[in-house]
């Protein structure tokens, strides 16, 4: 059996599985919708179309997503079941030959994504304990959108512009409500799942740059993912959180023993390619362990809302990347003839944190300011950049129109030389909610910068966006 045949079988199997899942969802929905005993299954969700167009590049489409977001929920006095499925047409077809026109899924790419499916038991064993089991998204932290302590679920980076999106993960989630003000949460995620990376024009924005010896160019890149052993301890993540209310302030302390969801390279091997002056690279990628201690708070100072959230990461071991030049011996002249080690993740603890405030002026203008130290992909001591984030918005027409003329931020990667190491991003939006259950959004993403910063990589991806969302 050749590889192509195997892919076709996998593809057909995948299609059959998708169809089976849809039939099961429909049957389940129909069954419960007809059931008369209260409380009934509640079915809700959204239809979304999200379209983005590059401002340059001859206005190529940057994104084409059409999503049916289906939520199913049923609750009895003590048990709640929740499921969330995305059925999507996503992206553009990547067709290489007429033979691919025979495969409908290649022409019309679509996918099914089980976001969450869990049940929750209230007052489990005791009046003060709630238990949640199943595929779920657990959100920690009190900051707005950027949450350094929110590390339990793997990131869903498919849409590179939605940094806060998480993938669901199987978890055992226990909440003990000690009293009306304090609670303690314990979480166990048995399986490890890495983050999925951005697709389409954003693919590669989170990849590290590999510096090649002078005069050499990359021909092919391959790597191997070294996933942790899939057993009860190696791939597992555990977390604890104590949450309370002190002196008018919501606070929490958290701890996670987990794994990086974005890989790090510990081996890079260079070998000569067939073409002159070009090399192949073979890499080995790992997902290192860490301990995380976190703290967050949200409260008010006068009339101003304030919050702060910090996470200190203690890498379990140092990660050294070995770059193996040995196969390039004498090719071309001047190429190092040895193996070089460099530390890509020091064992020294490092911190990511955010502080923020918001205020609404008497005329209804809402201001939100945050200072972030360390983006989620900036790991290792000394590798955290600084970002100032700002949003200004105001509602008009009786909350039917939200205008966010100023939204974005400034990132500084090197304070010694900020002129050459900065990034700026500007993301204004207009949201129209004039008709119940309909939301229309028109926006733009404009990026710029120099040097080593995440948003610098977006600098040629300025775009205009339009989305329509209908809730049901």
């Amino acid at each position: 059996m050749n590889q192509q045949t195997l892919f076709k079988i996998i593809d057909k199997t995948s299609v059959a599985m998708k169809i089976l899942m849809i039939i099961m969802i429909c049957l389940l929905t129909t069954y419960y919708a007809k059931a008369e005993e209260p409380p009934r299954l509640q079915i809700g969700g959204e239809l979304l179309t999200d379209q983005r167009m590059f401002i340059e590049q001859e206005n190529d489409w940057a994104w084409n997503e059409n999503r049916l977001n289906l939520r199913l929920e049923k609750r009895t006095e003590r048990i709640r079941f929740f499921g969330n499925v995305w059925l999507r047409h996503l992206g553009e077809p990547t067709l290489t030959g007429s033979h691919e026109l025979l495969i409908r899924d290649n022409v019309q790419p679509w996918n099914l994504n089980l976001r969450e499916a869990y049940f929750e038991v209230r007052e489990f064993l005791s009046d003060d304990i709630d238990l949640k089991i199943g595929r779920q998204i657990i959100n920690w932290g009190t900051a707005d959108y950027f949450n350094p302590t929110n590390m339990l679920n793997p990131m869903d980076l498919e849409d590179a512009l939605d940094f806060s999106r998480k993938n669901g993960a199987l978890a055992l989630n226990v909440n003990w409500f000690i009293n009306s003000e304090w609670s303690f949460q314990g979480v166990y995620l048995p399986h490890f799942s890495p983050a999925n990376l951005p697709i389409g024009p954003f693919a590669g924005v989170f990849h590290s740059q590999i510096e090649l010896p002078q005069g050499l160019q990359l021909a092919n890149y391959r790597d191997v993912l070294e996933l942790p052993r899939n057993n009860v301890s190696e791939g597992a993540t555990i977390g604890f959180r104590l949450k309370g209310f002190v002196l008018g302030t919501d606070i929490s302390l958290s701890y996670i023993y987990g794994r990086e969801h974005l890989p790090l390279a510990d081996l890079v091997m260079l070998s000569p390619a067939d073409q002159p002056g070009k090399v192949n690279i073979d890499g080995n990628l790992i997902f290192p362990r860490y301990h995380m201690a976190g703290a967050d708070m949200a409260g008010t100072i006068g009339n101003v809302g304030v919050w702060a959230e910090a996470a200190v990461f203690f890498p379990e071991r140092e990660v050294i990347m070995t770059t193996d030049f040995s196969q390039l011996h004498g090719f071309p002249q001047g190429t190092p003839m040895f193996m070089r080690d460099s530390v890509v993740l020091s064992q020294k603890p490092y911190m990511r944190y955010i502080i923020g405030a918001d205020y609404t002026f008497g005329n209804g203008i809402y201001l939100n300011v945050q200072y972030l130290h360390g983006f989620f992909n900036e790991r290792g001591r000394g590798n955290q950049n600084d970002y100032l984030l700002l949003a200004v918005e105001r509602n008009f027409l009786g909350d039917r129109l939200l205008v966010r003329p100023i939204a974005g931020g400034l990132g500084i990667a090197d304070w010694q030389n900020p002129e050459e190491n900065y990034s700026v991003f500007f993301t204004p939006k207009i949201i129209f909610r004039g008709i119940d259950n309909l939301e229309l959004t028109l926006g733009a993403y404009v990026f710029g910068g120099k040097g080593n910063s995440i948003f610098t990589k977006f600098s040629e991806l300025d775009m205009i966006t339009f989305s329509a969302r209908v809730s049901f």
Partner: protein
Amino acid sequence: MKKSQGLLFLLFAGLFLSSGTLSALTPTEILRRMDEVMFQPGDQTSNARMIMVDRHGNERVREATIWQKGGEKRLFRFTSPASEAGIAFLSLPNDLMYLYLPAFGRERRIAAHLKNQNFAGTDFTYEDLEVRRYAETFSGTILRQEGNLIVMELRPLPGITSDYSRIVVTVNRTNFLPEKTEAYDRGGNLVKSATHTWARQGEFWFPQEIHMRDLRRGSSTRMIMRNVRFNTNLSDQIFTVRNLTSF
């Protein structure tokens, strides 16, 4: 003839007696009486239909379930339309308010600066929906008495956070229920006006309809209460962040 004269005397005597009793009441005592009547049931649950009309006459409808315990705790959860369903607001003692937006999957503290913001597009601000006992929130002054009505000016007590500088409330002297409230901003401008229609169910009064007008926006919201149930022994657990975010 004598009999009718006697009845007339009794009626007048009753009126004078009532007036005399009222005049003996201090504004604080009137506020306490209002609290006693309005928060008489230990708890109540109701379904609210909110009809929002903008300045152009366009109408939108929201539906919600409201749970309230005494004069301290209130949970408000939208049930329709779909885009708003699940949005919930929890009001607790000591100026503590939380908002739950299902899309975010976690609660958010409502800071003081947000209290003057309209809740989910209605003409009720977070402050308007907060549960507060009049006597513990305001100091009062009787402005005038008009027939069966007493018009009082209320100002927030020291230490009370409010976006309103003063509220003029018209109280029915027979049942101590507010029939009309007018709220002024810190600049002294009249910004809100509400009329209350009260109904009696068994031994308890409840606001059958509150018609809130936002004079700045030119819009109004009628909140109509239905299926009101009293003293069903609502658990304190309903009024917790735990309940706000999950059940």
